């Protein structure tokens, strides 16, 4: 069974962390992964930095710029991840923008991911219709889960279409915003989480955008399988360095 589905099958709220590969230092990628895994993270999203990250807010934009300046690239990332499976057994997802994948070659990209032991891919700007038409079979042939996104604005009909495309989890964007927003979760967000949960989709649900501490984690995972934290984690990493990883993950579990 794919490690993502194995994680989702557990009776617990999953912690998923996004970080930018090659940040803060080029060679930090594998160390961040190892420390996250050791601290009890369930799923890691390895961000392949991009020059024009449309769906990301300022925190991830800055970490991406820094990582690119550090020399991160698709090729370097795949080199760094060689042998990662000898040390880490939790689910690993690569998250990036589609142009990087396109230039590397979609088939080659998937082949590299499979060889390394990557479990899934999140490409926010690869729309579902183009995925289904051109790339679905390639992803599936390499045992890679395609993680689609939904937002509060996504219609029920479209959610059904999206649900049919994947078989692991749907990335539920907490509000209509780029990453790193400050808003806490009010009634509107909570009722959105519940509304989607009540649809009983075949995919599990993970909530991302706007989660930053134990309280927002608890709120967002109440009706779902867990949460994805990106901007807040990068913020901590920037401020506290690698030693901040363990206490941050533990703080999320303290609720």
């Amino acid at each position, binding site marked *: 069974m794919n490690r993502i589905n194995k994680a989702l099958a557990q009776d617990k709220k999953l912690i998923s962390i996004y970080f930018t590969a090659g940040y803060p230092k080029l060679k930090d990628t594998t160390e961040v992964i190892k420390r996250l895994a050791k601290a009890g993270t369930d799923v890691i999203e390895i961000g392949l930095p991009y020059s024009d990250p449309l769906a990301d807010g300022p925190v991830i934009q800055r970490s991406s710029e820094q990582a690119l300046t550090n020399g991160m690239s698709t090729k370097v990332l795949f080199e760094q991840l060689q042998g990662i499976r000898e040390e880490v057994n939790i689910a690993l997802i690569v998250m990036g923008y589609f142009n990087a994948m396109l*230039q590397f070659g979609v088939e080659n990209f998937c082949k590299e991911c499979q060889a390394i032991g990557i479990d899934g891919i999140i490409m926010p700007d690869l729309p579902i219709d183009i995925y289904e038409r051109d790339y679905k079979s390639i992803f599936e042939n390499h045992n890679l889960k395609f993680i689609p996104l939904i937002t509060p604005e996504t219609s029920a009909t479209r959610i059904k279409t999206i649900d049919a495309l994947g078989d692991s989890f749907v990335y539920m964007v907490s509000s209509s915003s780029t990453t790193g927003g400050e808003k806490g979760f009010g009634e509107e967000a909570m009722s959105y989480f519940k509304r989607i949960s009540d649809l009983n989709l075949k995919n599990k649900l993970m909530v991302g955008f706007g989660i930053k501490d134990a309280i927002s984690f608890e709120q967002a995972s109440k009706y779902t399988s867990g949460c994805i934290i990106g901007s807040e984690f990068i913020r901590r990493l920037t401020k506290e360095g690698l030693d901040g990883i363990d206490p941050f993950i533990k703080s999320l579990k303290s609720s």
Partner: protein
Amino acid sequence: MNKYKVDEHGFYGDFGGAYIPELLYPNVEELKHNYKQIIATEEFQKQFKHLLKDYVGRPTPLYLAENLSAKYKTKIYLKREDLCHTGAHKINNTIGQILLAKALGKHRIIAETGAGQHGVATATVCALMGLECIVYMGAVDIERQAPNVARMKMLGAEVVPATSGSRTLKDATNEAIRDWINHPKDTHYIIGSVVGPHPYPDMVTELQSVISKEVKSQLLEKEGRELPDYVIACVGGGSNAAGLFADFMDHEDVGIIGVEASGKGVHTSESAATTILGKEGIIHGSKTLLMQNTDGQITEPYSISAGLDYPGIGPLHAHLFKTGRGKFVSITDQEAMEAGLELSRMEGIIPAIETAHAFAIFKYLNFDEDDVLVFNCSGRGDKDLETYRKYFGY
């Protein structure tokens, strides 16, 4: 017919589409489902035509440039878009899109701008319609283009600096797209060129096609025929070119010439000649030719004209290029500046530096004496006086 029209999936051949995050899907979908029928309504057409006539000053003249024609031994017409209100063709699009935004019930308008021309054209129509206007502009461009920043502010727009990436047009576009993601319900994004996700390239082409429609009837009057032998325009993103080419693309005997900026030369690292230096990829939600490194990271273009230094070209132009329907020529800073000076001296028309690029093609292309050429004289040079002044030492 319609070989160069967008298909039902939003593609021009291999190019176009809507490579957008799901977060943008509702916004783009709303537009996609409504733009054609709104534009086709009598109400829209009536207002659009009225504003283009009485506010913008259309039809713009089709002027036979006799001195230039004599020098290059061919017949040269200029489509005088530089005489439009706000000084360029950009306003044709913003007038159309503001009417569309109103029909969709949007009350907040966002736009990106490079040199500030599209920002000014957007701020102008927002002032006219009493709508809130936010213009994203690269922090670097804000410094370089102070007069246009002042114009936008005077027109009541808020100018927001884009401080990410290279802090220029592509980053301003990213910021505008992010703003739209964060305001999915009340906001319309007025893109200034034939770029971005479907339906923008088609919609902006449609709104700018008034240029080619006028050329046809004006040419009929002057030459006794609707079709010229060549249509020629500069291409950054490509909106003035798309507007001039629109009704001629399906007439294979009309030659189409797009003129790109090669900056300091295509063999230097400072260029914006996308058809030469670009590769297929995705930028701002569209599959097209764009300048990028081998890793797919978008690189920063350069041109002396701020309106041509976009790292991609509209998907329609990528299609015209790939199919061979359009011929693309690239012109250096120096060639463009000299052509701008020549047009000023010979015809008494100081063109925008973007526009000046088109007039430099005579160095590379020969025409017959009885050929009829129509150039899009897309913008006037007022905004570029400082650059001209420094360059020529006036």
